[in-house]
């Protein structure tokens, strides 16, 4: 009687060894690819994060700056360092812009105030971009008080009071710094340097807005920068070159002011 070979399925050792070897090779290759992809993804994600926040912030800023109202008798656009508290970079490092615009709000009318500035956040260890906003009731109240007092010399500081900017602001994006505003005329030439206040219905033709940003996830590996705000404005420093430069994204937009009236 011929023994029949057992028909039970299975792999021989050799098969197993070959399969395991192939699998091992594949796993190794895959892990390398995955590692590489992961690193790439992380970098892309950081860039995307940075772009997302910064781009959103930039879009919002440009949208509002574009709508800056030319209001007779009032400072429509103030490029000034009204906010210096908690901003070690001061106006030379981070510039500020405040403006009047028509926006939906809970007040009785439409003319509101908005502003953009960077503040140093010790807990974060970096700069954040803030947006100040005052509704139309607030703007009207402050303006009326000034007109009643017949004291319009300090209108910009009254409509955009330095002491209340931070508390009435929201964060548009973290790790954003080197905020700059450059007014331009109709031919694109720079107008007198910052700071500058445009009042009585006069506005520059355009405003160039720019800032630097890194992903909020990036600074987890930053060392030393979180302790010293000054490093963020020392592009030649070792720390800056090693840690910020590889992560930094520069954002810039030129905004034509809709209600521009030449000075």
């Amino acid at each position, binding site marked *: 009687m011929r023994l029949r070979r057992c028909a039970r399925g299975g792999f021989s050792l050799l098969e197993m060894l070959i399969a395991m070897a192939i699998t091992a090779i594949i796993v190794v290759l895959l892990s390398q690819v995955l590692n590489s992809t992961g690193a790439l993804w992380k970098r892309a994600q950081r860039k995307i994060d940075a772009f997302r926040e910064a781009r959103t912030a930039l879009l919002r800023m440009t949208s509002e700056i574009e709508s800056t109202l030319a209001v007779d008798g009032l400072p429509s656009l103030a490029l000034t360092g009204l906010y210096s508290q908690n901003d070690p970079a001061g106006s030379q490092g981070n510039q500020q812009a405040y403006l009047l615009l*028509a926006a939906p709000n809970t007040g*009785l009318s439409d*003319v509101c105030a908005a502003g953009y500035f960077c503040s140093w956040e010790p807990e974060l260890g970096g700069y954040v971009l803030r947006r100040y906003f005052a509704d139309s009731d607030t703007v009207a109240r402050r303006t009326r008080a000034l007109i009643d007092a017949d004291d319009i010399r300090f209108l910009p500081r009254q409509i955009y009071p330095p002491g209340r900017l931070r508390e009435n602001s929201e964060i548009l994006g973290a790790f954003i710094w080197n905020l700059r505003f450059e007014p331009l005329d109709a031919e694109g030439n720079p107008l007198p340097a910052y700071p500058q206040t445009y009042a009585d219905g006069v506005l520059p033709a355009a405003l160039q807005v720019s800032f630097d940003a890194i992903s909020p996830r990036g600074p987890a590996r930053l060392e030393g920068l979180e302790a010293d705000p000054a490093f963020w404005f020392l592009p030649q420093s070792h720390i800056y070159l090693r840690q910020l430069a590889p992560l930094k994204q520069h954002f810039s937009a030129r905004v034509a002011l809709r*209600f521009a009236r030449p000075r």
Partner: protein
Amino acid sequence: MKRRRPPVPARGFALTACLIVLVLLSIMIVAFMSSVRTDRGTSSAFSDIARVNLLAEGAVAVALDRTATALAADPGHAEAWEETPVPDAGGTATLILPVVLQPPLPGETDPRRIYLVSTPERDRFPANVAFEDLADLDPDGQLGLRFTGPFDYRAPWVEVRRDPAAAPDPVRNPVVARFAYWVEDETVKVDYGVTGNDNAEGGFRRGEGARTSDIDLGALPLLDYQPLGDDPASRQRNAAVVSERFSLPYLEPKFLNRAAPDPGSQPLEEVVRFYGTVFSFSNELSSFGRRRVNLNALIEDETDPGKIRAQVDSVAEIIQRDLPEFGQRFYPALAGPDAARRASMYVTKIATNIRDYIDRDAQPTILDATGSVLTAPVAGDGWPGDEPPRSLGKEAAPYLTEYAWTARELSWQRTGPSASYRIAIDQYLEFSNPTTTPVTLPASAKLTVTQRPAWKAGSAGRLRMPDLTASLAGLVIPPGQAVVVTTDPEAAEMPDGILQPGTKFMILPVTDDERIFAGATDEMENDQPILRPESPVAQPPVAQWSTSAGPYDLYPHLAAEGGEQRGFTFDGSHVDDSGVHYLYAAALSGNVPATVVDRTGDPRSLSEPLALPPAQTGEPGAVASAFRYTASAADFPGSSTLGRLDSPLVEPGRWPDPTPRADGTAGNALAFIADQPLISIGQLGDIYDPARESAGVIEYAYGGGRTLAIGQPERRREEKFSPGWSRSAWRLTDIFAAAGAEEALLPATHRGKINLNGVLRDDGTALRAVLRGLSFGTAPRTAPALENHQLTPEETDAFVDSVRAYIAERGPFMERGELSEISFFDRARPLPGGTGSSTVPDRTREEIFRRVVELVTTRSCSFTVHVVAETVRQAADGSLTTRSRARRSIVYRFDPVMGPDPAGPVASFRATPMFAWPSR
């Protein structure tokens, strides 16, 4: 028997692994596809949003381009509203569309129309577009709020195809987007940023119509609209709106909500949106595209003849430049050089009257026959009939209207062939003021009478009273009254009937030596010593004013006829006869000595010389103006009106009558003299029209007894846009303006005026706001029938109805002065509400016109562009599905850009955005 072994089940996991891999791959693919779909959707949505926003911006640009083109294509344009029927499911719907009208091209009669809404074909509204296919620019109905029903902001879609150059095809070249726009004229609304007078008590103060702040906000329906009268709620709200403006200017429309915030009610701005704005700017250019000339800046007080002439010439040149037909208002059929000469002379006379109406001095502007401005009196008999002055302006000056002497024999003692005598001669000079402006003489005013009575006393020779010079400081002649200036200290005791009751005197401070004369005479007649009348040696001016500015301030008008003797015959027969005097009087008698003049005779023209008749014996009835009178009124010939302005020349409070002087009633008119800057360009209606009839000789025309027909329909009604259209007097209001005298070149835009043509849109609400705000003071500053009057609701309604009827009959108003042509200003029709007077029928209406015309316009330069844009998907059947939508509402101001010459025509219009609505 073979047992068939059951099949061994397959072992291993190759298939399983394969399946798992397949499943995983499927999941990955599905996830990937899902992600791709999501990304595509997101990308597409972003793309749509970006595209539709770009399209909306593009639509705004298209709307701006059309509007700017419409404004610049012809400066004679006007913004109007037009009713357009469109097919609707239920029949026909009527759209009220904004349109720019331009004068017709040569050879055509209909004005050109450029619609301020999107139309597929440029400038033309489609004929059969259905109502439901029109884009709704105001889906929530807030813009179109209207108290008589919904106001539809609908305009045709402009479709954008994938390939604009290819033929339309739903499949191969479908519609991918579409847009529509509506350009809203802001001047059809009340600008609560500037309107609504206020006073210290917080209430609305009606005004004279000179400023846009006189417009009554209370007329807006939202402000608790009530008919005219006491309306505390409306006034209170009105005052709140105004007072808010002083604490904080209205930066944008919603600031109105701060005037009277009421948490429980609808925000004020939402209610007023259809009727109110803070962006109402009108174009202050003439229909010829030039800045209107500010008469208040052009006319200045001046004594230099060259500069005076330059002012007159400037006014005349502007008229002739822009209205070349104007000079032939009453000579339309005349042609050739003679027509041109007459036209030029007519315009010069108008210009002279305009100057004297505005300048503050009392010196009439006089251009002699050569055109030179006279600065020194002309001695003698006034104007020779063959060399009349070219122009003689009317002024609020003392007019010498009568002159009289009285002479009394105080004593007469005959001694043989001679007699010693003592006589008193007193003089009476009646000065009148036939104007609406009080005449007040300056402290330096002096009266000099040089051509005084003379007499011959035989061997004593020719004796003559010395010239008289006396101060007239402080003499005031009220409007329409006369004052007798006399040397007679007992003038007030003259019997009634000699001097008019109530005569006002000014007794000159003269000594007896200047009025009482004594001597002896051996002149004999009929064996009686007498004093004979004697002619003066020369013919100097009889009377003249002099002030610190020299003898220029009053022109002499007392002239003698032909050097005749004038004086008295004394013979002692009336000594101690206190009731008997000799009166030697002269009054205006007209056209002396010219005989060809048929338009003078109007003392308001200041061209009328007084005639001194030849010497008379003093017998009653010998000559009407030289007579002897006694205490008995029966002896008084009755021709003297000394002390009263010649009846029926002037009565206080009476106004120019529209009828020709030939009717005998024009004499009731006071001349309107402002002697101050114009407060309304409508005051040009006060200017004397030197020639009202086609007959006559323009050279001699100074009066006419009628003002320019501004505020009254022209009697010679010209066809609209015809060449003779420029003969209408009201067209002067288009080329001239009244503003602060410091503004030589007026701004090309003005804020707050109301577009007359807006009545179709708002049922006349804005126009009612103008009418409600008017305040009429007291005569003569105000027409008597309107004294302390406010227009009644009936009158207001009649006015608006009249405007609407005019638009329906003759088309929209092209110029503000065209308002003169509405039936409301037609004197043949009674005013509603009983206002008006049968004796001064037109004056009442003219006065209303004068107030209104300064507050209205026909040319807007601020517009709100409402845009809706959509990206769409077109199905094979042609139907459209909206993918995304964007809206824009932006206010633009179109500022005129003048050419290189500041006084030249506009070159273009520049659109400047003023405000963008954040949301609707």
